[in-house]
């Protein structure tokens, strides 16, 4: 909890620095009445001092927190008894974990709770305390030093406003680059784990393999010990469910967008549009529950009454509910596109004697087609990445089938099942999830790039 204290003290120091800087600027100017001699307003001198007080200290704290764990662990290993230091890497990590557990006060230890471990835990605790104390002292003295330096430099010639604005601009620019860092982070994290996966499972076996059964044998003579990591059945399942979803969502979404844009009076629009948008605001876990509890049994019973054998985790149920989820997505994107078609096109069509539906089908839809296609592509990308509905309503067994009444599994379902629960981070099973994540990311990325490009092109056409 000491870190909160340090941050609070730092906050206090920054406030003091602001007041001190402000006062000093007034003093240097020789009173409020003579302030026009100064380059900037008093508050800018205050902010300048405060920034010099707070920023360097914050940066130091951030760096310290980032490197502290590794350094402490290194120090800890150096002080362990030699026979422990000789342990191979994984076992050594286990020992370190035990030491951390003891230090944190819970005595859940994998091996025996030896005297050496206890001593190491005490050592670990003292190292941590020393490190935190050192960080506090360094950060706070840096804050005082920086503040004092800035305070001394206040003079009528100093362009405090320009400097403060420069720093603020830097912070703003830095914030905007977070988007890049996120993308880079996603790519790197998924990519490197995937590379490690491809070291144990060949890339082409993964991409073109027709079988998926991610068990890894504990003993070599176990039955069914060879895990198979072929992603084709998973992508086939994903495509099947997404296709069913699109069959539901595109006609309903598109037709309701057309009706609301071209036919409905303002009153119908006023209540029907928000009603449809409610569907977009419902969390996906709710749809998943709805699919598993209501729709799947309904589909199964309906199939049974027709003499069909329907799995209780059928692709149809998951796809139907996913389609409902995507309706507002399709309808609001189509609505934008249809409204962007210029009125002159409609007027021209009516003037030739076309009915409303003829105008819609022969004039508006062709004109809006690129935009609608873009919207549908975005919806497909969303269906492919959707997780909770399929986790709760689709199956786990990887069937390579096109029959919507059977149970299939999807990429996202497998990622969740591979990663939820206890896991080792090195087994191909866990790494396979990252490889699937990479494929998912790439697929949706390509779809999104195409869709955004199409939509943007379309917008420019009528601007």
């Amino acid at each position: 909890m000491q870190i909160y204290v340090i941050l609070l003290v730092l906050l206090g120091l920054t406030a003091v620095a602001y007041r001190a800087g402000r006062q000093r600027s007034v003093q240097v100017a020789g009173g409020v009445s003579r302030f026009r001699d100064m380059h900037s307003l008093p508050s800018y001198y205050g902010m300048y001092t405060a920034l010099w007080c707070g920023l360097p200290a914050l940066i130091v704290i951030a760096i310290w927190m980032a490197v502290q764990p590794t350094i402490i662990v290194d120090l800890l290993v150096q002080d362990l008894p030699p026979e422990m230091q000789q342990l191979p890497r994984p076992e050594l990590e286990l020992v370190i974990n035990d030491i951390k557990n003891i230090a944190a006060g819970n005595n859940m230890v994998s091996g025996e709770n030896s005297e050496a471990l206890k001593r190491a835990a005490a050592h670990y605790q003292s190292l941590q305390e020393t490190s935190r104390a050192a960080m506090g002292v360094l950060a706070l003295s840096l804050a005082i030093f920086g503040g004092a330096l800035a305070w001394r430099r206040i003079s009528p010639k100093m362009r405090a406003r320009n400097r403060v604005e420069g720093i603020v601009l830097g912070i703003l620019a830095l914030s905007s680059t977070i988007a890049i860092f996120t993308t880079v982070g996603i790519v790197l994290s998924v990519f490197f784990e995937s590379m490690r996966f491809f070291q144990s499972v060949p890339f082409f076996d993964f991409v073109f393999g027709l079988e998926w059964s991610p068990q890894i044998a504990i003993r070599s003579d176990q039955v069914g010990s060879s895990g198979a990591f072929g992603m084709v059945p998973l992508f086939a399942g994903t495509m099947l469910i997404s296709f069913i979803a699109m069959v539901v969502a595109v006609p309903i979404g598109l037709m309701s967008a057309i009706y609301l844009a071209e036919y409905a009076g303002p009153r119908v629009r006023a209540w029907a549009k928000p009603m449809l948008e409610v569907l977009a605001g419902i969390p996906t876990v709710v749809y998943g529950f709805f699919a598993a509890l209501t729709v799947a049994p309904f589909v199964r019973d309906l199939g049974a009454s027709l003499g069909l054998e329907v799995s209780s985790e059928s692709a149809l149920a998951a796809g139907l509910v996913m389609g409902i989820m995507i309706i507002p997505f399709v309808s609001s994107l189509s609505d934008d596109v249809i409204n962007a078609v210029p009125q002159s096109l409609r007027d021209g069509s009516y003037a030739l004697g076309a009915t409303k539906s003829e105008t819609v089908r022969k004039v508006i839809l062709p004109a809006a087609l690129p935009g609608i296609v873009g919207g549908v592509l975005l919806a497909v990308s969303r269906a492919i990445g959707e997780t909770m509905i399929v986790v709760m309503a689709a199956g786990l067994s990887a069937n390579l089938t096109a029959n919507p009444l059977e149970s299939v599994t999807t990429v996202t379902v497998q990622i969740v099942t591979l990663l939820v629960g206890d896991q080792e981070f090195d087994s191909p099973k866990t790494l396979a999830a990252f490889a699937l994540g990479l494929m998912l990311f790439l697929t949706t990325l390509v779809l999104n790039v195409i869709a955004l490009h199409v939509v943007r092109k379309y917008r420019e056409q009528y601007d």
Partner: protein
Amino acid sequence: MTSPADRKPIDVVRASLKKRYARERRFRFLGQLAVFSGVAFVGILFITIILNGYTAFEQTDIRMDVYFDEQMIDPQGTRDPQVLLQGDYAGLVKAALRKEFPEVRGRRDKRKLYRLISSGASSRLQQMVMDDPGLIGTTQSLWLVADDDVDMLVKGHIDRTLPESERRLNDKVVGWIEKLESEGRVEKRFNTTFFTAGDSREPEMAGIAGAAAGSFYTLLVTLLLSFPIGVAAAVYLEEFAPTNRLTDLIEVNINNLAAVPSIVFGLLGLAVFINFFGLPRSAPLVGGLVLTLMTLPTIIIASRAALKSVPPSIREAALGVGASKMQMVFHHVLPLAMPGMLTGTIIGMAQALGESAPLLMIGMVAFIVDIPGGPTDPSTVLPVQIYLWADSPERAFVEKTSAAIMVLLAFLMTMNALAVVLRKKFERRW
């Protein structure tokens, strides 16, 4: 009969009119059908959830005359809190049940009898004695929480007319419950446990308080990070950024991130925050970080739209009276754009509140009984709690799940309504 050559174009048109109007009506009807089915889906969804869940707000209680036997709580009579803590409170409940049904013999039947009252009742008795040791030696008439099977029977989710072999409770147990009912000892009362307790394996003792607290801390972290960063990024991109490759790249990135599947953000969180930086698993802190990255695009896009809607005349006027560019933005443009930014932020937060897939990746699916006290305590969030309960086999968890969904939807609706009100109230046409 006139020959085709004599027909004027107007006749051809007239002849086809009927067909064309019919087609027009069909098309119109299809449109109405589409809108209607969309609205009907909303209706069906809400009705199923409410019908399944409204009973969870009530809980069956059974009135028992519990004798606080000194022999079972504190045989030495020391009244030492340590001793009181160790007392056999489950035994008190059992004794009360035995007194009520003296005719029950045999170990099997007795065990069934003891299962009428929830195992959580004993901790309530313990709490009562800890608060007031004077209770020892007295007999109190108390409403104790019934077991979930009893609860289901009383609420009618277990059909009493079914043959015994297809029912979870056999005829003997149903007979006991009916006897209690005829004595007025069974009552449905408002379920406070649901709002004050953490998760539990026993449906009647499970509540959403732990998940709600987890959601609160997660959203707090998300809000504290995503709002300032999002607004700063939007201000930079809209007001200061030069048009060059870098800003173009940033824009493409933001638009793409808005459409990346949420589960991929979970993978990022697992690989970067947990494995690389070593932050604790299952903590709202990590959940908040992941959700921040996820909601940032939404907030940035909304904030940029809000900044765009501020007319250039405001900027020119500010610059005209000698404000610097930074002063112009922070003193004049930003306050005018703030309502739009807040609306976007609330919508982003609502998204984050309903999100569960990335949180599964970073271990917020653990079974956690305690209510978290801070952003680094292990916890779960409301949507994940719903997912966990939906997976539980007990019938009583179905209504708990639906009730939790109702609570979650209520929060989401409030947030969205707030966004709408904010937009209506502060929206300005220039």
